[in-house]
């Protein structure tokens, strides 16, 4: 590039060439306007597409759910008040959604007991304590963890965690909520860690300096200044992890079992909402019967729960966000 520069030229010589250039070269404005319009339409199209997809999914869920409630065996009070979920028992079908919600919540609770403390502590270590070299080694490893297919976690739960649990306490069922919960927790851990670390690192260095300058230790600075300042980000990381755990399917389908029941015993089988949908969609029943439509009712319930959580997350994020200039 530089070899093309003729260093012996004088400014007046260049002056004339450049003036000719400037006079000659014009952007093709009509083409530019056309292109801008095309790009704009493309972007609007993409935006509308996501809206359309979301809208149609909600529409299908709602309309199929409505069909489910038109069956004479199904009543709203049975759905919301019964404690039995036995859609596959010939004569005594019962559709008490709470059995599935309880399974989902138990697995989610166990997962969060694993993922939230582990994720937050690791995030604090990576952001506040770890030397640069350690961080640059650990972060890719965490990303690998996040990239493992969930079906592998499911096998891991069934083949490794469950035998380990049974070795500790023989009362554990082959399919149990604890094993699935731990695996979902490990699955959510990188998400929590990475989002919480982003939130912690977004806290300006001047606040750390302020805490150190007052004689605070690193722990003082972290616990009393940095974490409170990053709280909105940390909470939204938690809520995202909860949403992810509630919707997690493959692990619970493999490891949590297929008996829906209201129990607080994590050693027992606990079918979740997603687990039930896999069971039905996987072909255990003939199409277009009441069991088939029950899948949509469950899906709609799940959607309502995750939507609520997302909205709560957004609310918390905007309410507690600290802005620094």
């Amino acid at each position: 590039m530089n070899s093309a520069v003729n260093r012996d030229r004088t400014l007046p010589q260049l002056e004339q060439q450049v003036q000719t250039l400037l006079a000659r070269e014009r952007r093709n404005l009509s083409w530019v306007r056309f292109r801008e319009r095309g790009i704009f339409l493309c972007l609007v199209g993409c935006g509308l597409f996501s809206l359309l997809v979301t809208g149609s999914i909600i529409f299908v869920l709602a309309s199929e759910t409505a069909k489910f409630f038109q069956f004479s065996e199904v009543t709203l009070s049975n759905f919301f008040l019964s404690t039995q979920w036995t859609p596959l028992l010939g004569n005594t079908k019962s559709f008490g959604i709470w059995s599935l919600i309880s399974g989902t919540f138990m697995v989610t609770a166990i997962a969060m007991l694993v993922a939230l403390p582990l994720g937050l502590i690791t995030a604090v270590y990576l952001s506040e304590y770890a030397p640069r070299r350690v961080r640059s080694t650990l972060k890719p490893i965490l990303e690998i963890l996040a990239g493992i297919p969930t079906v592998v976690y499911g096998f891991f739960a069934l083949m490794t965690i469950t035998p380990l649990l049974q070795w500790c306490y023989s009362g554990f069922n082959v399919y149990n909520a604890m094993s699935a919960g731990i695996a979902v927790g490990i699955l959510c851990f990188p998400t929590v860690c990475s989002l919480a670390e982003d939130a912690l690192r977004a806290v300006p260095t001047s606040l750390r300096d302020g805490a150190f300058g007052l004689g605070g230790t690193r722990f003082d600075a972290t616990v009393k200044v940095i974490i409170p300042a990053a709280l909105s980000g940390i909470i939204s990381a938690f809520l995202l992890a909860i949403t992810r755990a509630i919707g997690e399917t493959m692990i619970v389908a493999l490891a949590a079992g297929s008996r829906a029941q209201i129990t607080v015993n994590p050693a027992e089988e606990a079918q979740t909402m997603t687990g039930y949908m896999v069971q039905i969609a996987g072909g255990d029943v003939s199409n277009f019967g009441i069991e088939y439509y029950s899948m949509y009712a469950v899906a709609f319930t799940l959607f309502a729960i995750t939507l609520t959580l997302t909205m709560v997350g957004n609310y918390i994020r905007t309410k507690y966000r600290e802005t620094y200039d």
Partner: protein
Amino acid sequence: MNETITEPPRGSDKNNRATHDLQNAPTEPTSRMDTHEAAQADVPRSIIEMKNLSSWYGSFQALNSISLNVRKNKITAFIGPSGCGKSTLLRWVNRMNDTIPTARATGSLHLGDLDLLGSGTDVVDLRRRVGIVFQKPNPFPKSIFDNVAFGPRLHMKLRRSELVDLVEWSLRKAAVWDEVKDRLNAPALGLSGGQQQRLCIARTIAVGPQVLLMDEPCSALDPGSTLAIEELMNELRDQYTIVIVTHNMQQASRCSDETAFFFEGSLIEMNDTKSIFTNPNSQKTEDYISGRFG
């Protein structure tokens, strides 16, 4: 050996002083003048002494064999063009440079009898005794009260009423009390820049330091707030030794007793402020203060 220079506020002693000051706060300014005069009469002794202090960031040498003394209860100004090392020097005095992994220093730096560069030096205690105010006001995203109470809560076990007294005392000393007394529980980030900076000064003096380091404390502030901070420094010099880094030569000449001029990591000259600004020894100093460069 630490005890020799740890005369000011510790534990309950501190609170006695705090309440005492609160009661006397609205008295006529003459009493304050008296103490100031008395301090002037004493032979001022050095509180910070450095000899052949050099400092590096990685392989870049930021300070080149600095030797100077900062005298007790004086305002000392460090001036010089950007990148001359004055902030680096300031940040060694309370070891804020420890937060930069590549920073290191050789030579000697003492606060009274305490060897500041010694590996055994407890930086937590040091920073309690040598407070720092930064260029950009950096209040924590907490209430005004909690900002000032932050340091005391780390270092002392106070009853609620004692803490309230200490916070009021600090805010009064920092000349921001009247503006915030009705909204102590409001978020500190809602204050104006000048108020935030005075809040940061209050937060710093609440732990009872002997020395206040100020790293360009007014460069992000408007002229009115700058004036308020300068008046405040003048008020505080009776009780504290103040070292201020500034780009603003008028500020140095207005409010400091002694001035040190740095250039490219070296101390060019240090003298009482009047001499530096009227009759500098070095040509470089004269060029800088007369605005010929920098």
